């Protein structure tokens, strides 16, 4: 049984279709990236998964439970970090965590709550109200809240939005640690590709309310885009470039990047060597995540 299974999910708001039939599957222990431009339906999908809004059509199972029919029961085993922190500015971090711990019926001691704050890098003795916290600290507290019920599935909506590179890296490390230590299934909705490349093993790209791509982040069978050749220290590029079927795209230091048409890579290498280019190394450049994302999105809201 997968951790999350969505089949033909549809949702409209005031007659405007947001999700046109989203289908995807997330396995246990996955860190699953849910990518897409703003307005593509990511947050709506997450909210439906959490049972806080209902779908118009389609089937959903989170840990085998239907979020609409078994919302409170499911939410004991699942938690989420919404895009907004949702913190009470007048509470301290510790009292905020205790409030949610009690709300979930967790029987923790004071020391347990303190340990959980320490785990996300917050000082449990910090008695300042949460409104005085930096964005990064608020995000950490949000994650501590989302982990308060020791969920089996964690849904994160833009978890690193607005964080500086160091803060982002720290959140990455924390999520990887949680995934590794607890086999936590994590689904991350984001359009920050660095998050996905660092964290995720599988992704879905959503655009205009439909999943345009679902698969691994680093596809072994990634589409071949271009070749890079290392010319060594003595390489001099002829000008004008006169190698039919081989187009020069870029040159940096002693590397050149080319596309090849109408011939095999071996033939192209032979042509270049014969033409006076001392070839040291050749590498195929396959499609990266950014190419994958750009190929499958058009950038507009549905």
């Amino acid at each position, binding site marked *: 049984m997968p951790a999350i299974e969505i089949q033909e999910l549809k949702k409209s708001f005031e007659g405007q279709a947001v999700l046109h039939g989203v289908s995807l599957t997330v396995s246990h222990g996955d860190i699953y990236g849910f990518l897409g431009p703003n307005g593509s339906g990511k947050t709506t999908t997450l909210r439906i998964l959490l049972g*806080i*809004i209902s779908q118009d059509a389609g089937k959903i199972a989170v840990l085998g439970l239907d979020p609409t029919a078994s919302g409170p029961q499911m939410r*004991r085993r699942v938690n*989420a970090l*919404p895009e907004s922190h949702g*913190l009470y500015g007048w509470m301290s971090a510790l009292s905020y965590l205790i409030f949610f711990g009690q*709300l979930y*019926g967790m029987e923790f001691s004071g020391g347990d709550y303190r340990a959980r704050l320490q785990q996300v890098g917050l000082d449990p003795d910090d008695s300042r109200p949460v409104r005085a916290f930096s964005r990064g600290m608020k995000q950490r507290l949000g994650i501590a*809240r989302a982990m308060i019920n020791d969920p089996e599935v964690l849904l994160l909506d833009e978890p690193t939005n607005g964080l500086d590179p160091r803060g982002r890296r720290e959140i990455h490390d924390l999520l990887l640690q949680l995934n590794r230590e607890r086999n936590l299934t994590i689904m991350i909705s984001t359009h920050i590709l660095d998050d996905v490349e660092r964290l995720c093993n599988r992704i879905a790209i959503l655009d205009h309310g439909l999943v345009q791509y679902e698969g691994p982040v680093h596809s072994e069978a990634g589409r071949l885009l271009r070749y890079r050749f290392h010319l060594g220290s003595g390489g001099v590029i002829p000008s004008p470039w006169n190698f039919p079927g081989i187009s020069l795209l870029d040159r940096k230091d002693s590397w050149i990047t080319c596309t090849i048409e109408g011939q095999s890579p071996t033939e192209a290498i032979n042509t270049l060597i014969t033409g006076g280019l001392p070839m040291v190394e050749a590498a195929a450049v396959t499609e990266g995540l950014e190419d994958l994302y750009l190929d499958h999105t058009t950038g507009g809201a549905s």
Partner: protein
Amino acid sequence: MNPGLILVKREFQEDFKASRGLAFLVLATLVLSAFAVLLVSNTELSLLDNAQAVYMMAGIIIALAALVAVVRGSDGFAGERDRQTLEPLLLAPINGPGLAAAKLCGLLFSWLILFILAIPYLWAVGSTGQNLFAAILYLFLAGTLIVLVFGGAALALSARLKTCKAVLSLGLTMLLLSASPVLLGPSLRQSAVGRVLDLANPFAAALNILDSVIIDSQGLAWQLLRLAVMVSYGLVILWWLYRAIRRLEP
């Protein structure tokens, strides 16, 4: 502890720890002090008899309770939505009716604080007069029902409308419309239309109960119809709230 009780506890804490709660306490004290000084001055100058001063003070407390219920009720869900704190609450394993019940208890706690705050003022304006104990008792009863009716209605609106401003505008309009028959002159209030407006209006019912108990020294039997009107409103509002909360969205 039950999740609903945890939420009630937080609502209660918010009255004392959050800046909004503290502002409410200070404002309520200022309003009550100002009116108490005015009423005591009038009594000293023999412009009002003691029972009338108590009745007016009780009326002011009822009006303040209704106002606080509408303001806090409007904030109940729409305010949380505005501050983006609603979604984490909806993620918690608590169902909609439990959430609404907790919010309603929070409103009643606010009323309880206002009531406790008001007792010394009532005593100050009416310590030498008649029916002070009955005034306090019926003030508590009528005030609780008023908070349930107006606070519950504001909460229901708050669950359905997206912004706190929209709920507040609608809630205050509802309160003003409800209070407007009270402003009718004595002769118009005695007419058939005036009597119907007086009877079918929870706000007027609350004031009429206080008038009847404090000024006319009438007992419970005289209040049953008015109480029944208020309870009926309360039940309808609770049903409306139950319906509204089932479609609560972040």
